[in-house]
């Protein structure tokens, strides 16, 4: 039997988290960071092996009575999200190196690192699971560390924010549980109870059942990748928790939503997806525009960043349900870029806030003159968020648009407004905080530029974003793989080009 690389990949951070709960003192931080780096190496290894086509799948019968398997596998999308997760976690740890030291902190930095590693382990299992029950269990298990991360570290109203997060997530998750029980009933009725996604694909079920199950799954994912209306937990959570937690929340956890829409909703219930697509596209458009407008009006830096994410998730959902190879692979690539880009934005804004002691946009002004490097990094992160050409996010946003245009030109045209608004809110935030005269408060509090630790936090993120902007091909190939497979399973074909070839 070959080495179960994927299991090891998930176990390393889990073990690390348990070790950190046991270890006391400052050494724990280094141990935790060591576990995160080890996970990163394993994650990169798994991604490379996946890209080379090495089989990594594991499948062990787990609960035979109900047809549950302990089954892990990586497809192109899974590999990219694993890659993103293993990169983001050490970055976040480094950024929150001193998180437990504020007087209002309830718990030590050790607890933060331990919870982060636990969250990472569950998130990795979600991205690797090819069994719906395993997926669901890891999906719900992420709530536990996240709840404590939000409730344990951050602003004064963090407990209320944590509770709100939990209410929304539990409601979504338990609705999904009904659908999970339904999957069992459907496969059992077909004679072979099984939770493997591959077994579910093509299982006969009535149209109504398929639509109900689709709705159950989609609701949970729409709460997770917050779509307008189900999103209200996110700005509160982002405002109250530390920037590191927000990064994990938006960068890693919320991706589970879009990931699940593609991997479960679209693949297992193609007919129901087609039935729901018109509504979902409108919903996605509303999310894009709503998020953008709210970001435009936000007075709190962290809320602003979270609203930009709501807008971006709208793009991803739009790309997935536009159902062309290009738009899907664009969406997958978008997930990766958005993770890195939002992480950069959250963390840099976090550095500003920590210096100034306020997260109100109006509390800043003229930061450029006192901290030029910080300002430069903020600009780069902002430009990535608004998808400037040359950044990875541009490539993905363009692919979503180009792909979706082939099928839904009108909707795509409307959604483009979101791109314009993105430029407006990012630049407005940049202008208000960094330019103009240096206010007294800023001069008093922002006394030093980025430290070397903080530079080490943002450097890898920005470098990757720029590299993906200029050389997207290797990563895009992996995203394309999944997109092509999905199209094949769903039985959809790209629309034929509408423009006739010119006379030659």
């Amino acid at each position, binding site marked *: 039997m070959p080495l179960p690389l994927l299991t090891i990949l998930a176990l390393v951070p889990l073990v690390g988290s348990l070790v950190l709960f046991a270890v006391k003192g400052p050494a724990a931080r280094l141990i935790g960071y060591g576990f995160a780096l080890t996970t990163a190496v394993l994650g990169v290894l798994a991604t490379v092996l996946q890209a080379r086509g090495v089989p990594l799948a594991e499948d062990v*019968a*787990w*609960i*035979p*009575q*109900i*047809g549950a398997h302990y089954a892990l596998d990586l497809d192109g999308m899974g590999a990219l999200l694993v890659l993103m997760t293993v990169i983001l976690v050490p970055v976040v740890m480094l950024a929150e190196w001193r998180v437990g030291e504020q007087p209002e902190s*309830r718990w030590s930095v050790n607890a933060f690192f331990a919870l982060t590693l636990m969250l990472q382990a569950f998130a990795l299992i979600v991205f690797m699971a090819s069994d719906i*029950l395993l997926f*669901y*269990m*890891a*999906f*719900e*298990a992420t*709530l*536990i560390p996240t709840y*404590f991360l939000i*409730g*344990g570290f951050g602003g004064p109203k963090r*407990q209320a924010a944590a*509770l709100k997060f*939990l*209410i929304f997530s*539990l*409601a979504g998750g*338990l*609705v999904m*549980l*009904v659908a*999970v*029980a*339904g999957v*069992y*009933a459907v496969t*059992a*009725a*077909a*004679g*072979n*109870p099984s939770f493997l996604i591959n077994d579910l694909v093509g299982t006969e079920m009535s149209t109504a059942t398929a639509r109900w199950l689709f709705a159950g799954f989609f609701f949970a994912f729409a709460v997770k990748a917050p779509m307008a209306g189900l999103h209200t937990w996110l700005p509160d959570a982002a405002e109250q928790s530390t920037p590191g937690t927000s990064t994990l929340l938006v960068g890693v956890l919320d991706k589970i939503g879009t990931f699940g829409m593609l991997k479960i909703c679209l693949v297992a219930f193609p007919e129901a997806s087609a039935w729901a697509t018109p509504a979902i596209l409108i919903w996605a458009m509303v999310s894009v525009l709503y998020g953008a407008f709210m970001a435009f009006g936000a007075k709190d830096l962290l809320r602003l960043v979270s609203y930009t994410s709501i807008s971006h998730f709208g793009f991803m959902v739009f790309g997935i349900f536009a159902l062309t190879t290009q738009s899907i692979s664009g969406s997958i690539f978008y997930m990766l870029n958005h993770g890195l880009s939002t992480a950069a934005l959250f963390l840099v804004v976090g550095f500003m806030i920590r210096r100034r002691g306020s997260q109100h946009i109006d509390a800043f002004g003229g930061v450029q003159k006192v901290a030029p490097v910080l300002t430069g990094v903020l600009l780069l992160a902002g430009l990535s968020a608004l998808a400037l050409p040359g950044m990875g996010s541009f490539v993905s946003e363009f692919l979503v648009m180009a792909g979706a245009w082939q099928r839904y030109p009108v909707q795509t045209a409307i959604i483009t407004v979101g791109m314009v608004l993105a430029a407006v809110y990012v630049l407005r935030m940049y202008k208000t905080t960094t330019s103009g005269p240096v206010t007294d408060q800023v001069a008093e509090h922002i006394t030093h530029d980025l430290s070397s630790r903080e530079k080490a936090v943002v450097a890898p993120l920005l470098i990757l974003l720029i590299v993906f902007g200029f050389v997207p091909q290797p990563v895009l190939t992996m995203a394309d793989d999944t997109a092509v497979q999905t199209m094949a399973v769903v039985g959809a074909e790209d629309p034929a080009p509408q423009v006739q070839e010119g006379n030659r």
Partner: protein
Amino acid sequence: MINVLEIAAPTLEWGLLSPLLVILGGACLGVLIEAVAPREMRYVLQSALAALAVVVAFGLTTLNWIQATPQLAAVDLLALDGPTYVFWALLLISGLAAVALFAERALGGGQSAFASSAATVPGSPLEREADALHREHTEIFPLLLFSLFGMMIFASANDSLTVFVAVEIFSLPLYLLTGMARRRRLLSQEAALKYFLLGSLASAIMLYGISLLYGFAGGFKFAAIDQAITAGAGSMPLLLTGMLLTSVGLLFKIGAVPFHIWTPDVYMGAPSPVTAFMAVATKTAAVAALLRVFYVALGGLQWNWQLLFAVVAVATMLLGSTMALAQNDIKRLLAYSAIAHAGFILVGVVGAVAAGEGVNLPSVAAIAFYLFTYGIATFGAFSVITMLRRAGGEANSLEAWKGLGRSNPVIATLMTLFMLSFAGIPLTAGFVGKLAVFESAWVGGYGWLVLVAVVMSVIAAFFYLKVVVAMWFQDADEESVGTVETPSLWTWSVLVVSAVATLVLGLIPGGVLTLLTDAAQFIR
């Protein structure tokens, strides 16, 4: 010539009945010990005897489970089939845990949770004298065994009269045990009286139902009732009324709405070890009897009682979950949680699917698994409850739990684990239990009930969360904070085993589910 009346001696299957006999024998021997052994030796003798009897009975049960073919025993009064062995095993496991909690004396300054002399008037000089002499009631162990004996018969009864007799056998010791708390004795005695009065009433109503069923079928045997229903002869109103009234007694013991009123007061008033035992064992035995009565005897009326139980399940989950939200006493909270869990179990009962084409997990196995996970978490939670103390007694107010995460992270983590299991969060046993009963209900054609049950689980998750929030996110208040006392090995073992089992059954439930599934076939 004189005709001599010939009475044939009944043949008893001694080997098959040995678990019952060991428990009964242990109980009787315990009574004897009370009479002859010197006072200072009784505690050791009684606790060892009780533990030994339960362990031996458990061993014999497993042995029979493996070897014996399912058959009727004791003049067809008992059905010794797969479900019987499953529920006996569950009952004996909870019996062992209860013995351990009963025997705990390290908490509260070397005294058990039971009154030093239950016969004295609370607050009287006699009571103070008994306290000063460190008197204690070691009769609790035989009482526990008698109760366990009744429950085992209840779970295996194959005849409606035996059902009634078994209810009485296991209830009477419980009424007594409820009234024997060391602290807040008036409350405890009041609870015992309430439990007794309401319990007797429920039993009486059930007896009336049984007599109506007898009138319908002309016999007590479940097989006879089933045949009469299948034949379609007899009076339908008689049958339906009989079914309804019989269900009253069973639903009362389960703690389902509208027969739940006793639960909060009794759970709160009884000594915590007794509460734990009642919460787990009574429910297990009553569900087992309910399954047998309705699946075996009244299986032909499935279309009638499925709807009845569906309505009861919805009401029970709704009331249990919402009322628990408002509780500020941990034992009351767990009482309402027990009501809510009764509702979730009934969801599984409604499904009523047997193993067959495409169904690998029959309802009986799903429900047994649910009861197992619920029992584990309950014993775990109650052992923590007995450990958290203030001013000599248990600190049951949620106020006392504040800041526990900081002062004792290990205990707080364990309690969190049990709460998550109650709430049905994945990676804990409770999740798999919920999943199992929901699936069997869905397969049985009650998808809508699953939807309702899931909504209720969200509500239920909140009050469990209240405990978690108090422990981890709130600061201790000097006025009300409780301290964790170190118990003896008895409680520790219950706590550790419960925690490990909660995790193991949450991660790899396959083995246990296989065992339960293989033993899910009733005989009649």
